[in-house]
């Protein structure tokens, strides 16, 4: 374990991950499977954030779909604008609005024709929202299951709000994106490019999470998770400590959503409501919430299992899925990442018992 904490170990780890993601995967996988992997990598990016907020910070965020959705919708708005402008010139109305009977471009859409503005919003808007919400909730010491249910209700309310917005595609959401910053999306080469972008972002996000974990802040976050009042009595404002992790998780989710849109080609309220938000979480729980790589592994494993099982058993896979959650979480609270630790503990049980 020491090895992976050393500088060399970190470099090796990242190099290995980069090799797999940038070298091996494109070589071995068909275009379709690579596209799927790209989609899963987006879930993994969300998972890294949840690992930070929940695994390290103890905040069970049942509403990451909100931030994922914000990033996704912001990106989708830009893509629809770019699409409309490419075909019909500046100020054109995106195709779905024409169908919905909206003839004038709503004012809040206009700035999204700028890629710079869009990217800035993707980075800032969800983060700012998370900070505000976090301050409102954590300052009042709403935590544990209360926070979980509140964030879940938020995801539900957000999805319902979007369904009601015809100028954001309503229930259907936004789809049919043709260009991504000037590149054709139906070109397999460009689809591969999107995969590389997702993989690169995952590595960056992991590096940020690693630094946060190893920093003094990371230790403080664990302290808040384990004994929030104690931290407060040491002179820290524990709410601020939590807000930072919550906002970073929101930022990760937003970025993941933004990349998800060109990869999958659609974003709709169905992808960001209560159930998808729980799915984000389950990957993290199954992988191992408190570890760095556990959430990534879990998110990829759950998404992969979902695809593989539903291909093999289209009508019965829900059972397998439900059972997986029940068994892993009930029997293996540390997730897949704890398998090694559990076996080790088993081997040196006497020592453990003495402690």
């Amino acid at each position, binding site marked *: 374990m020491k090895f992976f904490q050393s500088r060399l170990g970190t470099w090796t780890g990242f190099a290995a991950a980069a090799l797999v993601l940038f070298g091996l995967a494109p070589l071995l996988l068909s275009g379709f499977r690579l596209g799927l992997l790209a989609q899963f990598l987006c879930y993994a990016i969300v998972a890294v954030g949840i690992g930070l907020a929940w695994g390290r910070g103890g905040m*069970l965020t*049942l509403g990451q779909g909100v931030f994922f959705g914000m990033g996704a919708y912001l990106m989708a708005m830009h893509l629809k604008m770019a699409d409309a402008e490419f075909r019909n010139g500046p100020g054109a109305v995106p195709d779905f609005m024409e169908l919905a009977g909206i003839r004038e471009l709503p004012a809040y859409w206009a700035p999204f024709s700028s890629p710079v503005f869009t990217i800035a919003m993707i980075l800032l808007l969800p983060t700012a929202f998370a900070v505000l*919400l976090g301050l*409102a*909730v954590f300052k*009042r*010491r*709403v935590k*544990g*299951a*209360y926070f*979980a*249910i*509140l964030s*879940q*209700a*938020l995801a*539900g*309310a957000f999805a*319902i*709000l979007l*369904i*009601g917005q015809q100028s954001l595609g309503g229930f259907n959401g936004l789809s049919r994106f043709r260009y991504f910053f000037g590149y054709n999306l139906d070109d397999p080469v460009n689809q591969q490019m999107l995969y590389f972008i997702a993989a690169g972002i995952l590595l960056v996000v992991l590096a940020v999470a690693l630094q946060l974990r190893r920093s003094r802040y990371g230790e403080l976050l664990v302290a808040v998770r384990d004994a929030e*009042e104690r931290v407060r009595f040491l002179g820290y404002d524990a709410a601020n400590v939590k807000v930072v992790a919550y906002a970073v998780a929101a930022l990760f989710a937003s970025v993941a959503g933004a990349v998800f849109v060109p990869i999958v080609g659609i974003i709709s309220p169905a992808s960001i409501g*209560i159930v998808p938000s*729980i799915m984000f*979480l*389950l990957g993290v*729980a199954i992988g191992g919430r408190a570890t760095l790589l556990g959430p990534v592994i879990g998110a990829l494993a759950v998404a992969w299992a979902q695809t593989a099982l539903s291909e093999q058993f289209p009508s*019965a896979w*829900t*059972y397998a*899925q*439900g*059972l*997986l*959650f*029940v068994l892993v*979480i*009930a029997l293996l*609270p540390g997730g897949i990442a704890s398998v090694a630790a559990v076996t080790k503990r088993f081997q040196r049980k006497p020592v453990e018992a003495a402690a």
Partner: protein
Amino acid sequence: MDLLVGQLFTGLSTGSILLLAALGLSLTFGQMGVVNMAHGEFIMAGCYTAYVVQQAVGDAGVSLLIALPAGFLVGGAMGLVLEALLLRRLYHRPLDTLLVTFGVGLILQQAARDVFGAPAVNVSVPEFLRGGVDLLGVTVPKTRLFIMALAVVSVAAVALVLRFTPAGRRIRAVVGNRDLAETAGISSRTVDAATFFIGSGLAGVAGVALTLIGSTSPTTGQSYLVDAFLVVVAGGLGRIKGAVVAAVALGAMQAVFETYSTASLAKVGVFIVIVVFLQLRPQGLFTLRTRSLA
């Protein structure tokens, strides 16, 4: 005037539906700290109990009377099994109960789909509950009056059981101070099982009642779950009184918002109100006072 009375009634009616769905949760979540995401599926089980009983009995009126206790037993039994097999191991990890029961909910939903088929089934409303009654110039459906009455009866029953029966006193003792209750010779294990039985049984009763106004399909329970949790959160930990007030308040808010805007915005509005409300009373409407730090 008519509109006002109508809205008042709608608020009460929506509130009593919320209350029925939330009452069991208030026990299991509020008093035991278990976040039971399968509670919605227990409600769904209650709906299907009503369906099965009606298929067997035929007469809608008689079957409703049989289905109410039967629904309680079915929901309660499912709760007991869940508690014994899974939750018992997870009391020290309350957030994990949320994830585990979500998995259980997925399984139950698919099971309902396989047993009863994916399409919704019909549970007939008994003759004596069809139609409406004119109250202050508003037509009030009898089914809704029945549900209000049932909500009142359920709340009263729970309150009486908690207050006056030995089992109820034990439940309150364990909720108040688990360790102390244990030293006093109360088996918290039995009490937990009993609490979960009652809480889940109430979900079953809610399910039976909801067949009177809504559909019965594998996904029926889900639609009530989030709102029910909000009621418990807003009402305060482990407080039946809080759940009652919160349910009616939420129902009224929903009705008012809906009149002046759309149903979708009403949901969002209710959420915002709850967040603001928790700013003022982070522990909900009513709180149990304990000296523990957590």
